[in-house]
């Protein structure tokens, strides 16, 4: 691999200053421990708080040399986490529960986004304003089993006969499917991302949120760790990471623009206007509704209800085992055993 160093060096010279991945600071690296975080998707406004924490030196001050990686697709983060290739992964609550059902010893250690972002979306003249209107329509999803289950639950709650609704797998081309009128509505697009994007482009999206349609509420994005990594050293690193991330989100709330700046440095292909609008839309759900609760708080009762719903819909087979989450690494937690969820 050393023979690649020369062309790689030349390449880096060429690219100097243009859209380079944010490199973790090497200053004072003596005292910092390395910590790799894999995002759930490409860097976007959902991650603004994390990038804000990094840009303002929060991780460094916490003694961490954080490397943020973006996965090529949504299935990769948990796989890499299980393989021990990263220290922390951001994933989705249903994906984590599915992985655990397959035997993966993973655990959710904090919620990045408190509420569902998945929504039922439709455009302009074909807008679905109430779930009853879904009768006889075509709905596009990304083909994920739990999305089909969401749809079934929604139809049930609205009293619509599911056989009149045609579900189509449009992969990740949800927006394109709506624009080309291949489908009447999609289930899977995020209200804070695609919804805001389409709104800004005057496509007039109609957005219905999952938790308003009868699906039990859940945390859309969660931080996931390998249980085996949580020995004394690992636990300390994780705690410091989550604390620094909490501070990053607080900084984001005070000055959203700084977070977006940091985000754009990570990937110059992002559109500033869009990302700022998405951060604005998402800020409320970065923090728990109950402001007594720390950043990243996961409600065990909500999780239990969601897990039950998954079991009822045949998405997970095993009976409930050890708790899938813990709050003990959140800022201010771990000192009060009553608020952890570890069984």
């Amino acid at each position, binding site marked *: 691999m050393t023979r690649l160093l020369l062309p790689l060096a030349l390449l880096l010279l060429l690219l100097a200053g*243009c859209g380079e991945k944010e490199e973790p600071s090497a200053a004072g690296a003596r005292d910092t421990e390395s910590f790799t975080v894999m995002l759930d998707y490409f860097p976007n406004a959902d991650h603004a708080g994390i990038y804000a924490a990094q840009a303002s030196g929060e991780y460094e001050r916490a003694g961490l040399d954080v490397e943020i990686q*973006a996965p*090529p697709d949504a299935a990769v983060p948990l796989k890499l986490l299980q393989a021990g290739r990263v220290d922390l992964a951001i994933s989705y609550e249903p994906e984590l529960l599915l992985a655990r059902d397959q035997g993966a010893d993973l655990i959710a250690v904090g919620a990045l986004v408190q509420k569902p972002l998945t929504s039922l979306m439709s455009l302009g003249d074909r807008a679905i304003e109430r779930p009853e209107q879904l009768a006889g329509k075509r709905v596009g999803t990304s083909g994920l089993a739990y999305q089909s289950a969401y749809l079934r639950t929604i139809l049930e709650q609205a009293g619509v006969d599911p056989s009149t609704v045609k579900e189509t797998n449009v992969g990740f081309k949800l927006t394109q499917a709506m624009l080309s009128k291949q489908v009447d509505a999609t289930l899977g697009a995020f209200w804070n991302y695609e919804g805001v994007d389409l709104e800004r482009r005057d496509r007039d999206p109609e957005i219905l949120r999952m938790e308003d349609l009868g699906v039990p509420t859940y945390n859309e994005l969660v931080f996931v760790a390998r249980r085996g990594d949580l020995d004394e050293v690992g636990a300390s690193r994780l705690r410091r990471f989550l604390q620094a991330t909490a501070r990053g989100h607080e900084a984001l709330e005070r000055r959203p623009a700084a977070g977006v700046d940091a985000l754009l440095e990570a990937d110059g292909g992002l559109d500033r206007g869009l990302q700022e609008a998405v951060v604005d839309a998402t800020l409320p759900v970065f923090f728990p509704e109950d402001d007594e609760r720390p950043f990243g708080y996961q409600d065990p009762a909500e999780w239990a209800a969601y897990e039950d719903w998954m079991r009822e819909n045949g998405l997970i087979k095993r009976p409930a085992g050890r708790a899938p989450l813990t709050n003990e690494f959140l800022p201010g937690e771990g000192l009060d055993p009553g608020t952890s969820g570890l069984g």
Partner: protein
Amino acid sequence: MTAALIVLVLLAGWEALVRLGGIDDLLLPAPTQVLDALWTDRDLLAPDLAVTTWEVLLGLAAAIAAGGAVAIAMHVSSEARRALRPLVIGSQAVPVPVIAPLVVLVLGFGLAPKILLVALVCFFPVAINLYDGLRDTDPDARKLLRSLDASRWQTLRMLELPGALPSAFTGIKIAAAVAVIGAVFAEWSGSDSGLGHALLIANGQLATARAFAATFLLFLLAVCLYGAFALLERRVAGWTPRSTPGGP
């Protein structure tokens, strides 16, 4: 000339389709919008173009080196032929979209997995064409060299290798055309730069015109690469008698 005219007509039709035909330009941008994106986003796309070009060039170089070595080994030694032939053929059957994520899993997000994947995609056409070219020599010339007591090495160096150049170039030109595809798949499996990556990001933000611009640059890269090798072929292997006089 007629080719250029046909292209212009198609472009005009496309432009009209979007402007007048009611196709959402988030789905299909007009050619003028794509051109605009090419210019506006040039600071973004230029470094990505550089990255992907590097991946392609290094991967192609690796494929030529490996393919050349394997082809010569297979030609010269029958044990090597028996051992390597199934691997050579197998390399072509490997579905890149399946292999790419695995390679990235093992090698990470850097330059190395991209080079490996491009090399994998390019290896077979280079190796197999060179191998066929080495075998396919003028039997009279071969007889001549034998009668002159040429050593195996002399026969390889003076007869088989130069004679195999046209076939080798055929293989390299094919590889050049598919190398870009390999690089894009590699980037889609894990990258933070490159035109394939830019494509994904652009699509994820409904920046469709930019996505088309990136695609166009990829197409341009493939064409330029092919053309460069075709030119080189004319310099280096221009002695080839072709059946149609005046052909390329």
